[in-house]
């Protein structure tokens, strides 16, 4: 069937690409993964010198599409045309040599290598025997030319997130990328760093490159895009020119329906201090200082948001409170009891619940079923046991009840949970953590990777807990989320709390400055 259509398509493609100066054209791209169609006949193109935003919510297929363009995935159907020539990318190598460079959301850097070693990786133009001094000198010059400051000799694991991103961009420019794809580049940056990145991007576009920015943030599209293509559920629903861009229209295209995002606060936070941290310090995985003299408290019925760029001590903070990481100094109190040095098991018994950052890596056991996953925190409780045995009957009753009341969609209670969607996984996790009736709920990036509907549902669950009087510590990299949900906001930068502000006085710029490490006055 396809065979007949093909020659005509090629001819048409050639004609089109001659009339326009497209650097890249993607036509009718289809990509299936087991159980999902990630891209369904998607069309997308990039012109010389433009910044083209690829907008869509989580799970709409943006990253898949760009992974196809960068040669990482192979499309099931459709064609890729670069400068008017049809291409089949068998691997990223082909894409790179065709001038396509992608900066992935999760950086593809080797931590134990130096910056220079990362940049030259895979480059066959350099001599077989490496002269690192020479290479580092050249790279330093190159990075200066693009205004992207990096030190080629430093080791990647020592770099901040912003620096790592610069290394990724230099890496692609070094390989001569004409089309630069940035996947959610601002997710890891402070507002100020974002501004700098946008300046750099515009500069690069001016020099004739095509820039693709993958994002789900509407204001970013407004800020920088020359054109925008909107993806929804794997389909390309529209491509708009600069003058057609407006927020309401984009939101409608992206979600397909009106979404009202408002948070009603019916109650005020209580006065009882549920969690108190006093001058807490700890080391990170590299044995360096992870948290420095952290002091704050969370009250009952309060959501305390931790804002900051990921990697500034968020994980360490959650682990320290939950007892997964040793602290060097300071003390932690829950309901007035000093619980410093408690194990996770003791923490659980104290009524501390944690929704960890890594859903499938820590929070859930991917290969086990819903029942096994939902009893993880209370399999030891007396009501679940008969002597040394687990009372599966009771466990099953409880699990069915939870699955119903939290509306988790599962095919069977025994099927491995790895088959569930991200939103369902998070409901499952929250169902388990909330059902333990915690005093304190720590939620780390609770909506990461979820689409808007699922995000709203999770937010409602958290707000519901707040109303019930649970103290909630919300750690997120999304400032909008933090501002929307929190009663107070603490800003974490480089392992320190640089400021605590009340959310009704929150100002994005001020938070941004605090995120960059400028200590502000504590205003509560």
């Amino acid at each position, binding site marked *: 069937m396809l065979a007949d259509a093909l020659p005509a398509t090629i001819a048409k493609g050639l004609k089109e690409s001659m009339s326009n100066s497209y650097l890249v054209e993607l036509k009718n791209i289809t990509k299936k993964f087991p159980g999902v169609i990630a891209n369904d006949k998607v069309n997308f193109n990039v012109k010389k010198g433009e910044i083209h935003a690829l907008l869509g919510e989580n799970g709409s297929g943006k990253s898949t599409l760009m992974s196809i363009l960068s040669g*990482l995935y192979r499309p099931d159907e459709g064609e890729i045309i670069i400068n008017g020539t049809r291409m089949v990318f068998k691997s990223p190598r082909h894409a790179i*040599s065709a001038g396509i460079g992608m900066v992935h959301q999760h950086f*593809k850097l080797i931590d134990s290598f130096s910056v220079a070693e990362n940049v030259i990786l895979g480059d066959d133009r350099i001599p*077989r025997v*490496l002269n690192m001094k020479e290479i580092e000198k050249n790279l330093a010059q190159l990075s200066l030319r693009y205004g992207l400051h990096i030190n080629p000799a430093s080791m990647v694991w020592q770099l901040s997130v912003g620096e790592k991103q610069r290394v990724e961009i230099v890496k692609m420019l070094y390989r001569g990328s004409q089309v630069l794809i940035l996947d959610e580049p601002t997710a890891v940056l402070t507002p100020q760093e974002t501004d700098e990145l946008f300046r750099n991007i515009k500069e690069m576009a001016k020099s004739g490159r095509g820039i693709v920015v993958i994002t789900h943030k509407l204001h970013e599209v407004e800020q920088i895009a020359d054109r925008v293509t909107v993806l929804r559920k794997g389909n390309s629903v529209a491509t708009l020119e600069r003058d057609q861009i407006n927020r309401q229209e984009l939101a409608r295209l992206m979600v397909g329906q009106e979404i009202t995002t408002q948070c009603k606060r019916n109650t005020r936070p209580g006065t009882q201090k549920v969690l108190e941290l006093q001058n807490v310090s700890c080391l990170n995985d590299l044995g360096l200082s992870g948290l420095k003299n952290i002091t704050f408290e969370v009250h009952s019925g309060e959501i305390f948001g931790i804002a900051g760029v990921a990697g500034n001590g968020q994980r360490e903070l959650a682990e320290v409170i939950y007892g997964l990481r040793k602290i060097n100094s300071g003390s932690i109190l829950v309901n007035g009891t000093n619980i410093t040095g408690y194990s996770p098991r003791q923490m659980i018994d104290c009524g501390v619940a944690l929704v960890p950052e890594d859903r499938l890596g820590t929070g859930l056991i991917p290969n086990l079923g819903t029942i096994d996953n939902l009893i993880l925190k209370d399999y030891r409780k007396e009501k679940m046991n008969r002597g040394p045995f687990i009372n599966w009957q009771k466990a099953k009753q409880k699990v069915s009840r939870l699955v119903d009341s939290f509306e988790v969609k599962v095919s069977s209670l025994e099927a491995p949970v790895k088959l569930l969607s991200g939103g369902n996984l998070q409901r499952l996790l929250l169902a388990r953590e909330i059902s333990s009736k915690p005093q304190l709920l720590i939620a780390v990036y609770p909506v990461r990777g979820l689409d808007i509907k699922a995000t709203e549902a999770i937010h409602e669950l958290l707000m519901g807990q707040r109303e019930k009087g649970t103290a909630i510590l919300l750690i997120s990299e999304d400032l909008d989320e933090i501002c929307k949900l929190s009663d107070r906001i603490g800003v974490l930068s480089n392992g320190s709390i640089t400021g605590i502000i009340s959310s009704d006085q929150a100002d994005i710029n001020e938070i941004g400055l605090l995120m960059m490490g400028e200590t502000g006055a504590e205003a509560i």
Partner: protein
Amino acid sequence: MNHDIFIAILATAVTAGTPILYAALGEILTERAGILNLGVEGMMLVGAVCGFIIALNTANPWYGILIAMLAGGAVALIHALLTITLKANQVVSGLALTMFGTGLSGYIGKSYVGMPLPAPFHKIALPGLSNIPVIGPVFFNQDPMVYLSYILVAALWFLTFKTRSGLHLRAVGENPAAADSMGVNAFQIRYIYVVIGGMLAGIGGAYLSLYYVPSWMENITAGRGWIAVALVIFATWNPVNALWGSYLFGGIDALGFRLQTLNVNVSPYFLKMLPYIFTVVVLVLVTKRNMVKRIGSPQALGLPYDREER
């Protein structure tokens, strides 16, 4: 007199360490590429028997080495296919390889057991170098395969740390996804180094049957393949450390052997236990040291790489 015995033990330590050295060098490359191959013992055995049969029939040990290399590489290819393409469990596949290699070598070597080798390798004293006191007789009055191993250690060190190919090798073992995204062919590199690892293990095995013993018997390696795997951790994945590490292990082997001939009043069975106990103790100490110094195995060691894994 005592001095002579001391020199003799040291020289034997080098010969006893050489088969372990070859195998460990191979495993270092394999693990640097992110693949754990626990089939070293099996690959050594296959190399030992194939090398012996060829050397016996051609009366030329060099042909034996060549075929041992190919045979070791061929069985390693099974492991590569299973773990890289089919993404099988690397631990179990390696164990299967050891079992298969043990069986295969016993099967094809059955009629060769105990036969003498007409032309084994001989010692060649290197002019000049062999006259240096202590160092000369220990390191430079050896057979050609020992000299070859010196060159190999230097070459592999240079390859790993100073060349573009070495950079790619290490990158694939650390983070295959990152390497792949930059156009480094992670699959190809893993295949290449698993097979090279098998070739070196094959040579290590053949060294046993062509020089160290020199004869064929079932299970001639007696756990040396496993000691080589432990040595890789000891050597922190660095070929140069593997050199002296293997002589340390060889030295224990040689010492036990020497003590037996000296009529020491200890049961030979206890002396035979020495290398294995030593390996366990060293492994524990080294793992603790690596933990303190934060030296780890290649980050992606033992993990299959799937480009489209989401």
